């Protein structure tokens, strides 16, 4: 199997951009990073299928002609990619909802460090850290209904 250079370079570019976005502290950028990166991985699956060919669709008789079978595209990775796209779609929707909710709670969708680390660095424990129910409630009253 020899994947085309164009595909390979595209995969590398998409994954690189995705990884860069994943390192952001803004959850919405992270979600975008996941989308870009999973597109890269999906293309990798397509590249893994080998050279392109005619669609591997069975004729009316139910059987594929022998000469077409040899050159036909590999259907299995395409099925994988379809499944992966559906999964990415669901997960992206969830990630966007999560970052929206985080934005409602914090005025910003930045993911902060967990509690104890903040405290050991001498930051004020109350500033949007975990275990600050007053802040949550205030924002919920302000219109961020829990959904």
């Amino acid at each position, binding site marked *: 199997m020899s994947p085309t250079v164009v595909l390979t370079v595209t995969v590398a570019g998409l994954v690189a951009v995705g990884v860069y976005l994943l390192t952001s502290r803004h959850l919405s950028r992270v979600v975008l990073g996941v989308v870009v990166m999973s597109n890269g*991985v999906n293309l990798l699956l397509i590249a893994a299928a080998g050279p392109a060919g005619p669609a591997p669709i069975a004729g009316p008789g139910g059987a594929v002609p022998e000469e077409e079978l040899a050159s036909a595209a590999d259907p299995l990775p395409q099925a994988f990619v379809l499944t992966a796209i559906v999964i990415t779609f669901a997960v992206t929707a969830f990630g966007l909802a999560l970052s929206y909710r985080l934005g409602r709670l914090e005025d910003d969708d930045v993911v902060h460090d967990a509690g104890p680390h903040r405290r050991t660095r001498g930051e004020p424990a109350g500033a949007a850290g975990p*275990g600050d129910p007053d802040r949550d409630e205030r924002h919920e009253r302000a219109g961020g209904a*829990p959904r």
Partner: protein
Amino acid sequence: MPLPVLLCLLGCAVTLVLGQRPRAQRAVSLTVLTAVVGASAALLVLAVTQGPQHVTMGGWPAGVGIGLVADRLSALVLLTSSLVTLAVMVFSVGQGRTGDTGTSPVSIYHPTYLALTAGVCIAFLAADLFNLYVGFEVLLTSSYVLLTLGGTGARIRAGATYVVVSLASSLVFLTGVGLVYAATGTVAMADLAGRIGALPPAVATALQLVLLVAFGIKAAAFPLSGWLPDSYPAAAAPVAAVFAGLLTKVGVYAIVRVHDLLFDPQTLRVLLMAVALATLVVGILGAVAQHDLRRMVSFTLVSHIGYMLFGIALGGAAGVAAAVFYAVHHILVQTALFLVVGLVEHRTGTTSLRRLGGLAALTPGTAVLFLLPALNLAGIPPFSGFLGKLALLRAGVADGRWDAWVLVVAAVVTSLLTLYAIARAWSAVFWSGRLGRADGPDEPREPVHGPAGGERPRRSMVAATTGVVVAVTALSLVGGPLLSVAEGAARDTLDAQRYLRVVGGVDDPGAEP
């Protein structure tokens, strides 16, 4: 054979429809989970008496259709997990408020929980890598929803970390699947076992590393385990219990399958040994440092994953058998501990070691329920934790290489430190002091989850916890037979030829229960 998966998905749909009727929803969930326990038990009996069972869905030829395989390994972990899911469901029904604030349009706890169970079943029964990926995604996506139930601030923040880490690991896994397919032209584990041997060693090692990183994140092996103690404590008590019991063990199961069935276990032996060592030691040191019962239990969870990795790294029937035995023990004991912590929290409204105290006089029953699995976890002789550790140490000593000896020492030290951590927690929570005594100045943590304190736990909550504790204690009584089943499971796993025969051969007509 696909019965556990289908039942869960059907139950998920039905409970979704019954969203407005909590009673009917509960009845459906409990019935479905009981049926899943029955089906898994039947699968285990079949797998032990008649060898591995295999079925290809939809009547496609093997390699094209979705194959499911139940050998002794998958049937054993499947039965254990279905017992745990049933017990936790009973607990959460008793608790009533499972984090669902009542403001969401449909009650989503039950459907999501059943989808999670379905994902776990798919992952355990999958016969090819891609199906394993789908199983992982089903259970992970459900776990995102369960972890952030109610959408309170603490859960959203913990959930953000958890979701991003899980997504990254899923992408690494999918990359691994794509690369494996590119290298070998198949993802069915039976075919892979042979074809990977024919690859150049460097390519095989690269593939193994990619998959190991993906599963290492899910199993919370040390350098990749930081997400776990930050996210699990935020979840509702029953949710944390089922996560602790199942999710990391699905990762461990995947490592067993991939590491021992597909690739040459000797290639990455030293690496895996080092990871096991770091997981053991760093995890337990984290547990010793905690001032919160939930976080303490989460850190012991991470630490004891190291024992299973040790067994897997040893390879060979003895090592893998010990790892499998330990996994079964660990599923039950961690669920028991998290459920007891749930009881404590339900009763007092907090899990901070600095606020809790003197609970032994208040609820002697809970004290006993905590002590039994805790001693079991530390590996005190009559319990199954001791049997599992003993099997691991014997396998390690029998192996006799220097890295095995290092790990044997680390395992003993970790066991002692676990004893120290739980003794400290026991004395702080149940023995000394008074409830609600001096609030540490640097302890801003409020009881942000669960109902207000002072409530006596419902009878079904106690019953579910007692059930799991009894099960994990009884594990030491059936230790001998269980270990022999685990050895059989290990042989099933290691014997790629046999796996190939069953899966590649004609469908067993008796496979469908």
